């Protein structure tokens, strides 16, 4: 894919990149199975052509974009982000895409729009995981509008120089690097601007464990995994030391102002 270097502050981490092999074989994508080894085995059935993304709700110009239109909507930038999973592991991934704000600007959000809801594909014919009642399908996610407009929030179409592998959420996914990985919805079909905070898949499944915000925060513990530290995938093998997790996954300078005055323990 043709890319330009991103000029967005904070968009290029200089840390060692996670091997492509790990980033494309160790995935949480429940529509293709509950085990992290399942998506790479099962996602080949995903049909990514034709693909459209409907942008609707409280906008002046609702529109259905063809994936080819979306690919050309803005210059494709390479950005190297840290990805922190709520399970206590992390990766460094070179994504290809552009700021979500570029798309949102095109549809002109109305003044009453406060939140953005993301709806993803739920196709029982191609997604064996939908047979399990683990989540309320389709998988949905949400951001506050100002979070969605932050230039670091990204629509990604590729990684490691190529189009997204299906198990990583082809053909288009969200990447929000200062939040736990599950906020970054995969294989998006609808983006809806709304006034009320939308329900999100994991919040609906376990309200006390996964909040709407789900910002990476070492000081807000999780009942299952310690959030104080993380293991960087692909480094050191079995004896890898855990690194300290940073507030907002190290993107505090870029996104900290979004949460000024908010109690992050309450709004976890």
């Amino acid at each position, binding site marked *: 894919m043709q890319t330009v270097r991103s000029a967005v502050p904070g968009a290029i981490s200089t840390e060692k990149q996670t091997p492509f092999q790990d980033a494309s074989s160790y995935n949480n994508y429940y529509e293709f199975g509950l085990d992290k080894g399942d998506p790479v085995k099962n996602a080949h059935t995903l049909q990514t052509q034709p693909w459209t993304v409907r942008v609707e709700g409280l906008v002046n110009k609702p529109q259905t974009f063809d994936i080819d239109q979306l690919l050309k909507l803005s210059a494709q930038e390479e950005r190297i982000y840290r990805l922190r999973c709520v399970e206590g592991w992390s990766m460094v991934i070179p994504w290809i895409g552009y700021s979500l704000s570029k798309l949102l600007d095109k549809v002109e959000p109305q003044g009453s729009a406060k939140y953005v809801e993301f709806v993803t594909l739920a196709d029982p014919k191609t997604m064996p995981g939908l047979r*399990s009642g683990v989540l309320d399908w389709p998988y949905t996610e949400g951001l506050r509008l100002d979070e969605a407009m932050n230039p670091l929030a990204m629509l990604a179409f590729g990684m490691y120089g190529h189009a997204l592998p299906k198990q990583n959420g082809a053909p288009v996914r969200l990447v929000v690097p200062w939040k736990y990985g599950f906020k970054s919805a995969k294989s998006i079909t609808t983006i809806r601007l709304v006034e009320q905070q939308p329900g999100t898949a994991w919040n609906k499944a*376990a309200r006390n464990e996964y909040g709407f915000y789900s910002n990476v925060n070492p000081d807000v*513990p999780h*009942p*299952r995994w310690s959030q104080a530290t993380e293991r960087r995938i692909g480094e050191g093998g079995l004896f890898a030391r855990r690194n300290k997790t940073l507030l907002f996954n190290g993107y505090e300078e870029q996104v900290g102002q979004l949460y000024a005055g908010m109690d992050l323990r309450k709004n976890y």
Partner: protein
Amino acid sequence: MAFKLTPGQRSAVRVLSHLLCLAPAAWLLYLAITDGLGANPAEALLRSLGDWAIRFICLALAVTPLRQWLHWNAMAKYRRMLGLYAFFYASLHWLSYVVFDMGLDWPGIIADLVNRPFILVGTLAWLILLVLAITSIPKLIRLMGGKRWQWLHRSIYAAAALAVLHFWWMRAGKNNFDEVWLYGSIIAALLLARVVFRVRKARLQHVVKS
């Protein structure tokens, strides 16, 4: 069962069963050495050892019902062995949490025990297995006396229940209960088989007496 084995055959069966019980550990060791545990080797090892611990708990609990229902008394000898392997895998599971997952960060481990009840519950199950393993040394069994020993070793039921609770709690965060149901129902069935057997036996004795 009626068939008789020669002493040579008996020791061959013994060696073979030890090899079978050790095979999962050997396989995991091989994967660890050859970098075959995937992207997150510590997690893969930890989970796999936990799976084997609960499987051996099921196997150990299956001995008595097999003996009672199939009159397969030769199985009795394997109860101790299977129980000790359950302890072996539970210990490796716990150690891999301490060493690989937590990197021997003791304050972090203590914080985990306090904040994450599923880890506390798993640790309690392991401690019960530890006590049972120590008291399965023949000398100690004699020292304790059969009655007291049997009473203490009934706590395997508590360890099994705690192990299922630990597994359930761990998986609750991901709403992923298929395997929890599987092992939970196996253990429940094995415990129920004991109850049914006792009730029937009591009833039979009653009939004989009257």
